[in-house]
């Protein structure tokens, strides 16, 4: 990889954006603490960048095997009452939730 694309230190994190991507509604002060903890961990983790990986392929799977397929057969589904019994809220056979968008 092109070494010039590596990040400069210290690592700057848009923690509010990351929390939004991860769907975590956290208060300001917690986000501040997390930002500094993450920076410290990432500075340590960024040591991997010191490794020369020119021409190295990433490891996708520890054992390196391929083509694990199942037959196209129906093996059955769960009982709906059991499924909906787990749900925080259900109605008429559906899982129920608030609207996707706010009303304003």
């Amino acid at each position, binding site marked *: 990889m092109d070494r010039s694309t590596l990040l400069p230190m210290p690592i700057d994190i848009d923690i509010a954006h990351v929390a939004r991507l991860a769907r975590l509604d956290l208060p300001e002060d917690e986000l501040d603490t997390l930002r500094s903890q993450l920076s410290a961990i990432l500075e340590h983790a960024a040591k991997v960048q010191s490794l020369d990986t020119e021409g190295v392929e990433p490891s996708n799977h520890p054992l390196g095997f391929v083509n694990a397929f199942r037959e196209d057969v129906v093996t*059955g589904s769960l009982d709906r009452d059991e*499924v909906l019994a787990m749900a925080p809220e259900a109605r008429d056979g559906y*899982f*129920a939730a608030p609207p996707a968008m706010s009303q304003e």
Partner: protein
Amino acid sequence: MSVGWEPVIGIEVHVELATQSKMFCGCAVSFGEAPNTNVCPTCLALPGALPVTNGKAIEWIIKIGLALHCEISEWSVFHRKNYFYADLPKNYQISQYDVPVCHDGWLDIDVDGETARIGIERAHQEEDTGKSLHMGEGGRIHAATETLLDFNRAGVPLVEVVSKPDIRSAAQARAYAQTLRQVIAELGVSDARLEEGSIRFDANISVRQGPDAEFGTKVEIKNMNSFRSLEKAVDFEIKRQIAELEAEGTIIQETRHWDEEAAVTTSMRTKEGSSDYRYFTEPDLVPLVVTPEWREHILSTLPELPHQRKDRYLALGVDTQTALALSSADTALRSLFEDTVGAGADAKAAANWITGEVVAWMRRESVDTIDVDSASVAEMIGMIDANELSASAAKEVLDGILRGEGTARAVAESRDLIQMTDTGAIESAVDSVLADNPDAVERYRAGEQKVVGFLVGQVMRATQGKADPKAVNGLLREKLS
């Protein structure tokens, strides 16, 4: 459209495969069943459940790729596409990213007699989401007060076919979608029903000033559920963008929703600002390897596709428009054609009769399928060639054949439609008409040529319409001169 503006259109097609079971679990693939009845730990994303790839789906995407002249990747992987949405159980979709199963193909389409080759960027394998019902006023997402979720569709195998931005008009967009649907339907890998959502289209549209200009800002339009609405939506969007640009406005990169009723595209203003999908290799699955042997085997199972059929029909002497129509006609009509030709009929005549009169008859009678003896159709065409049937008599014979009244000859005989080929009998009818109409003969000889028509009519009446009018005409002129 103003001079100089050129639309640039790419189309993404999502095809639900009609496998027995879902992409990564053993739940049935079904349509219209009671909600949440075809769900299991895997497709509901219960903690601990894992996906296992349906081998048939992989075979079928390769089939689609080969039909679209794509390269098949010898090695490819699944990725996780991460985004949160209520009907996406894992909150990531298993899809493909930088190495899809199929890439770099093409599809030929025909619009107004012109063929255009549309490039296929890629076809990748992924899984469908569940369905959200937005409850509230009119079922519209903006006015909804509640979401109801059904996961029967979650995990249904989905192939996404992405065209290159090679499409240049709304009519081409429609033709591309229709042609692609036809290919998919003929491969037998999908129900390919637009109304059930088993095939869905999104269009990416931009306009630019002439073919050498840079691409403009593109807008994605969604929610077209028929070929007609696809064409209308693309057309509307092209005009909207040109109007916007000519008014010195700018095009915003966004997703717009086709409103069928109002016939406009509207901006889908969602709070979903950033689409940072954080793709990474799906660690629960292993790579896909398509060996040359596997590829060859699948290639050998491909049926003849419309464009191949069209070329074959042209070689048989069928004219271009008819070959085009017939090659994408439904199976019953096509096999009628093949069998009729097989029974010895002339291909051009058979194609014309089938795409013309047979189709017209079906429309008149409001039937959508026919069961007809191809030997009779061939026989009818032979009788026309032998002058035994006039064109109008042949239409009646065909009607009899289609109604199951018997062979062409039997129908022609029972309906008394066989053309008189005995010249002696025609001649005696001509003679007696001339004898019975001396004034007419007189007027003709005085130079009134059109009186011949009257005399032909008299002969036809005398022969109950079975004489060949052309022969009658010739004979009359000969005798009158």
